[in-house]
């Protein structure tokens, strides 16, 4: 099943991009997600909500895309996809909740949630039940 990626910009401080993933995130399309996050950052977004309510599957390669999204929103270069897991190892060291970039996951579904749980990476990603919660947690009320 192909994956559809929709990007919507939400005005405010900071400007937020809500990127909705519809379908299945796998080795064939994870780099497309990275490209979309890069475009959103270049368009001025400094907060990112990944809306995952309709993401029904995520392969391990999707985790590399999630980490790349965090790096891009920090203004850093995304890791070389060839570096694979080296990138995620680096992320764990970087992880500091006080300095966390404004990236949120919203609407995680059980199959995708299990991938994060089983790889021990769930704690590295700030997850909110809904898109509205995620936006509010970045921009405040």
């Amino acid at each position, binding site marked *: *099943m*192909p994956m559809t990626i929709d990007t919507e910009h939400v005005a405010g401080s900071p400007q937020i991009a809500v990127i909705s993933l519809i379908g*299945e995130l*796998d*080795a*064939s399309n994870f780099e497309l997600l990275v490209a979309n996050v890069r475009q959103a950052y270049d368009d001025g977004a400094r907060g990112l909500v990944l809306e995952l309510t309709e993401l029904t*599957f995520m*392969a*391990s*390669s999707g*985790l590399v895309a999630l980490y790349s999204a965090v790096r891009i929103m920090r203004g850093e270069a995304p890791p070389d996809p060839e570096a*694979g*897991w*080296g990138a*995620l*190892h*680096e*992320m*764990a*060291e970087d992880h500091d909740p006080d300095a966390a970039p404004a990236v949120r996951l919203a609407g995680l579904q*059980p*199959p995708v949630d*299990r*991938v994060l749980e*089983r*790889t*021990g*990476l769930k704690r*590295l990603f700030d997850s909110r039940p809904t898109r509205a919660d995620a936006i509010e947690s970045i921009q405040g009320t």
Partner: protein
Amino acid sequence: MVVSGAATRTLRIPAEVARMGELRAFVRSSADAAGLAPAAVADLVQAVDEAATNIIVHGYEGTAGEILAHARRRNGRMEVRLIDWCRPFDPTAVPEPDLSIPPLERKPGGMGVHLMRAGADAVHHRVRPDGGNELTIVRVIDRQPGED
């Protein structure tokens, strides 16, 4: 191409990551038909995706080839067998990452293989006499959904 027999369903696809959606749909429909609970279906789909992606990336290494998948229910188990014609590659020999230690300190690699194992009750590999690999991924049908 999907061939349905009385007990075994077969799918043959080019070894390309763009075809993994087709493979997942094949596993999903086979596992649904076999009576696996939804969470178990998701686990098996994950395991097969990670295994097949590994075959493409580490086995064929980007060269052209094919993957043949057989799915069948037997003795209360759902089995998906992946056959390829690439160099011998045994994912079950990849060391399991130790998730109790921080990700940074883990050895690189192995997450896809970890998800393959986590979603299955058993994984068997053998090198075929005519060359290539045969990987069998098993999920017990009465296993409790979501149970690790």
